Structures are given as structure tokens and as C-alpha cells.
């Protein structure tokens, strides 16, 4: 079998980068290891620039085990962007944590897992990639030497392993019923089966639960607030963005390409769970006092909006999901950047400690307000355009009630987002010393902020890409 390795060059380059950094890191003296962060960021930027050449290829490799389509390229770029932004933002944080450069290496490996995950054309690749990503995150979550971090890692590991065990059981059932692991062939094989297969429904539910865990779909979201709170903030940022977006992408592929025959079952299920996720995520965010926990619940709520893109079962929905993923990643990375920058100085993630942030660091206060308002869907910020796409795609399919739930809940979300804004702008700081933002974190902050405003005002470039991605998933 002839394998065109150039099709894997993004992944190979990323893996090489990780290995090279690991080697360099061991060779250079400890005090100069902090430059590794910059090297990695630079390397990823180069890979990102290079990755644009992969649009339009739309080919399958090794008996359809690996798909290089526009949808996967779109998401790979998203993970690269997320990784670059997170690494830039976290350089100081990592230096302070204990300066272990392995942190960056594992982060890249996690990103590699995500990239393979979105390209996975069969369930075996899917599982391996998912575990690569997940195991990296188990390590990262417990990376810090404080009890909360270790506990977060422990919890994430056990619950994560449980969920992937269940996912795997589901995959094995699907394999058993259809006799194939190739995602694009499953639908055809299901068509050959006579009638309705209970085992497939169980498999479907298990798969949905396993991936629902990763995207924090209610009722599989219980780990989210705990792990988000306990994990080191850069990890939380990457977990909340990359891992979630990757799982959304693969869930979309599985549900829309492999299991459309059971769409009646899963559409109902996903619709109800989406509504629950929006409601519970947003309501439970209200009483939170810890910023990271609040953002965790808000990200649960966001998952509820995002999954509606899959529910639509059409190209508009997938495009909307892709579009919103980018918007969500930008706003979330930005928000967590503010959190980690603040916490390096204040050693606290409590919302009350954000009092008077507007005086201590006007840029961060403004940026955080913009990110939160974007998540709430206030025009002209990007979150509004994203929500508009999402809701429009399902209203078409008759899910008006879900749109109403979504709109009401995004209104509720304004309430707790504004609470944070109020603390930052209206309360007086206990400690008046200005917070200095490290130059690298400032880059992340400015980039995400500008992008959040820009894509709100002029969404065309991103919507064209999202459109291509959506088209690729469904036609390929």
C-alpha cells in the first residue's frame, strides 16, 4: 500500500516539534529553558501558516482510516491557534509554577491528539487519538504541586477513563453490529441490517455519553467545574477549548456520517440534553464565587448552544458549529488568560479578588468584559454572529422551542457575566497596585480581543472557511 506521507505533514511536524523540544530541553541548562516556550510558539505558528495549503485536498488515506478533508484542516488550525495562544499566555505562569518545560511538550502532544482525532476515519484511530489527548490532559491537570491540582488530575483521570471505557464499549458494539470500524462505511452497513438494532442504540448512547463527557454535556458534565477549578489555569484554558472543540468535531462526524440512520433517536436525545445543558449550565453559574468555576459552568452552557449545530443535521449546522467553535475558543482562551495573569499576582481565582481590576489593569478588565459579553452573545461581538448562525440553523429544522430556551438562557448568562463586570468596574480594589501583564500574555490578550471584535463586525472571512468546513464534512 502506497502511503502519501505528505498528507500527514501537519501531524508529523507537530510530533517532531514535541520531540525536538524534549531533546533541546534536556540539553540546555535549566535557567535558559524558558526560551523553549517561544520556540514552540514560533514552531506552531510556522505549522499554522503551512496548514493553509491543506484546504481543498479532501482525500482519504490508508483505506479511509485517515481523512484529510477541509473540515479536519479547519479544526486542526483551530487547535494550533488555541495551542499557540495558550502557550504564549502561560510562559510566565509555567515559569512560576516550577519551570518544567515538559509542560509545553505534553501540551503539544495533546494538540497532536486533537488533530488526529478530527482526522480519524475509523474508530480505532479515533480511540487512540482520543486517549492521546486525554492522557496528556490527565498529566497536565495534575501538573501543579498543590493538592487541588493533584485532585483535579485524579478526578479527571478516573472519570475520563470511565467515560472512555464506556465510549469504547459503545464503539465495540457498533463494530460488532456492522462489522466495520471505518466511519464512512458504517452508515452503508447499517442500511444492510434489517430493521432496528437495540445493540446499536445502546452503542449510540454509550458513544454519546463518552464524547458528551468530553464536551461537558449534561448529565455527563459533573467533572467539569472541579477539574477546571483545580487544574493549572493554562491547562484549563486548553482543556476548555481544544479538547471540547475536538470532541465536538468528532461527535459531529460520528453522528452525521456514521449514524444518520438512528437520527430520530439521537436527535431527540441531543435536543433534550442540549436544552438541559443550556439551562443547568447557565443557572448553576450564577451562584459561583470562583472565577474558574464560573467559567466552567459557562462553558457547559456554551456546549449546549454548540451542540445545536449537530442537531440541525445539515451543512448550515456544521458550518455554524465550526464558526462558533472558533469564536468560543478565542473568547475562552482570552478569558482564562486574564484569569492566569491575575492569579500570578494575586494568588487567587475568587471573583471578589477581581474588585477594581479596571483600575489595576484597564486592558484586562476591558478584555474580560469583551470576552464575557461575546459569550453572552451581545452584538456586535463575535459571539452574537455565532449564536445567530447556530440558532438559525436549527430554527429551520423546527426546533423553535430550543431556540427560545437558548435565547432565554443567554439572557440569564448576561446576569452573571455582568456580575463580574460590575466587580471589576464598580468595586474598589483592596490592593491598588497595578497588575503588570507579561508581554506574551498581552499578545494573546490583544489577539483574542481583536479577533472577537473583528469577527463580530466582519465575519465574512471566517464564515467562508466555516462554510467550506461544513461542506467537506457532509459531502465527503
Amino acid at each position, binding site marked *: 500500500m502506497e502511503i502519501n506521507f505528505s498528507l500527514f505533514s501537519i501531524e508529523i511536524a507537530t510530533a517532531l516539534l514535541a520531540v525536538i523540544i524534549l531533546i533541546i530541553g534536556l540539553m540546555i541548562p535549566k535557567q535558559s529553558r524558558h526560551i523553549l516556550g517561544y520556540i514552540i510558539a514560533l514552531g506552531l505558528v510556522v505549522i499554522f501558516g503551512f496548514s493553509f495549503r491543506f484546504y481543498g485536498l479532501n482525500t482519504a488515506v490508508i483505506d479511509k482510516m485517515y481523512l484529510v478533508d477541509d473540515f479536519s484542516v479547519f479544526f486542526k488550525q483551530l487547535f494550533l491557534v488555541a495551542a499557540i495562544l495558550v502557550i504564549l499566555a502561560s510562559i510566565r505562569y509555567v515559569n512560576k509554577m516550577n519551570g518544567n518545560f515538559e509542560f509545553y511538550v505534553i501540551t503539544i502532544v495533546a494538540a497532536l491528539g486533537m488533530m488526529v482525532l478530527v482526522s480519524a476515519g475509523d474508530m480505532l484511530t479515533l480511540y487512540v487519538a482520543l486517549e492521546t489527548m486525554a492522557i496528556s490532559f490527565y498529566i497536565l491537570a495534575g501538573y501543579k*504541586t498543590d493538592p487541588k491540582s493533584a485532585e483535579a488530575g485524579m478526578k479527571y483521570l*478516573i472519570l475520563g477513563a470511565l467515560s472512555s471505557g464506556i465510549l469504547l464499549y459503545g464503539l*465495540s458494539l457498533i463494530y*460488532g453490529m456492522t462489522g*466495520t470500524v471505518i466511519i464512512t462505511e458504517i452508515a452503508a452497513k447499517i442500511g444492510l441490517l434489517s430493521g432496528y438494532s437495540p445493540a446499536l442504540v445502546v452503542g449510540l448512547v454509550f458513544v454519546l455519553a463518552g464524547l458528551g463527557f468530553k464536551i461537558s454535556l449534561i448529565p455527563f458534565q459533573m467533572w467539569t467545574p472541579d477539574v477546571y477549578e483545580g487544574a493549572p489555569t493554562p491547562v484549563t484554558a486548553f482543556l476548555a477549548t481544544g479538547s471540547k472543540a475536538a470532541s465536538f468535531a468528532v461527535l459531529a462526524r460520528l453522528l452525521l456520517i456514521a449514524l444518520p440512520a438512528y437520527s430520530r433517536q439521537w436527535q431527540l436525545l441531543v435536543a433534550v440534553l442540549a436544552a438541559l445543558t443550556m439551562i443547568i449550565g447557565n443557572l448553576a453559574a450564577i451562584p459561583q464565587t470562583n472565577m474558574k468555576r464560573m467559567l466552567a459552568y459557562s462553558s457547559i452552557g456554551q456546549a449546549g448552544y454548540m451542540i445545536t449545530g449537530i442537531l440541525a443535521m445539515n451543512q448550515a449546522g456544521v458550518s455554524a458549529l465550526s464558526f462558533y467553535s472558533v469564536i468560543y475558543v478565542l473568547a475562552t482562551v482570552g478569558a482564562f488568560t486574564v484569569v492566569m495573569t491575575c492569579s500570578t499576582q494575586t494568588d487567587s481565582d475568587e471573583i471578589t479578588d477581581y474588585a477594581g481590576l479596571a483600575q489595576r489593569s484597564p486592558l484586562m478588565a476591558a478584555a474580560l468584559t469583551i470576552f464575557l459579553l461575546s459569550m453572552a452573545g451581545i452584538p456586535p461581538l463575535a459571539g452574537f454572529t455565532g449564536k445567530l448562525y447556530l440558532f438559525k440553523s436549527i430554527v429551520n429544522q423546527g426546533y423553535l422551542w430550543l431556540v427560545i430556551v437558548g435565547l432565554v438562557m443567554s439572557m440569564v448568562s448576561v446576569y452573571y457575566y455582568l456580575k463580574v463586570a460590575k466587580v471589576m468596574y464598580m468595586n474598589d480594589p483592596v490592593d491598588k497596585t497595578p497588575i503588570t501583564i507579561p508581554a506574551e500574555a498581552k499578545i494573546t490578550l490583544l489577539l483574542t480581543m481583536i479577533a472577537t471584535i473583528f469577527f463580530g463586525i466582519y465575519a465574512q472571512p471566517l464564515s467562508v472557511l466555516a462554510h467550506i468546513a461544513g461542506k467537506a464534512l457532509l459531502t465527503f
Partner: protein
Amino acid sequence: MTAIMNIGLNHFLVLSGTLFFIGLFAVLSKKNVIAVLMGLEVMLSSVNINLIAFNRYTSPEILTGNVFAIFVIALAAAEVAVGLALIVAIYRQRKTAEVQDYDLLKW
């Protein structure tokens, strides 16, 4: 010999299902975190039985299921390695391996 011949796919599936629930039960009820980890391993093994049985009874000529099972074993080992490392780390801090004690993060 005949008894063995009578064993079919369903027997394997029942075995795997039983193992799955035994593992799950351990995860849900064991106090010691290492036992919980063992429960997880049992669950993964049940999947392996499933995969191999399906392979054998549906498409014995292509070894997809077997290959899948090997990958699962490898990944499970990685998972356990990380799990044990975390247990050591957390045990050093708290001097406890009881799952119930890990509740700093809540609400």
C-alpha cells in the same frame, strides 16, 4: 469438545457484559483509589473480549478487532501508569488513598 463448540457469540457477550458491570461496580463502590483503577482495567478488558469475539464471529478473515484490542491494552497501560503516578503524588500530599477524601473541589 462439543461443549466448547456450543459456545457462541452470545456467551462471550454475556461474559463481557458481566465483566463490564463488575468493573463498573468496583469503580462506583471501592474505597481505595487503586481498587477503582483496577475496576477501570476490568471494564477495558471486557471491551477487549467484546472486540475479539466480534472479530471472530463476524469477520474472522480481517483482524480489525484483534488489532483494536491490542491498541486498547497498550493505551490502558499508559492510562494506569499515569493513574499510579497521580496516586503517588496525591498520597504524598494527603497521606490517604481513599477516594472519599478527595473532595477539596466541590460546589
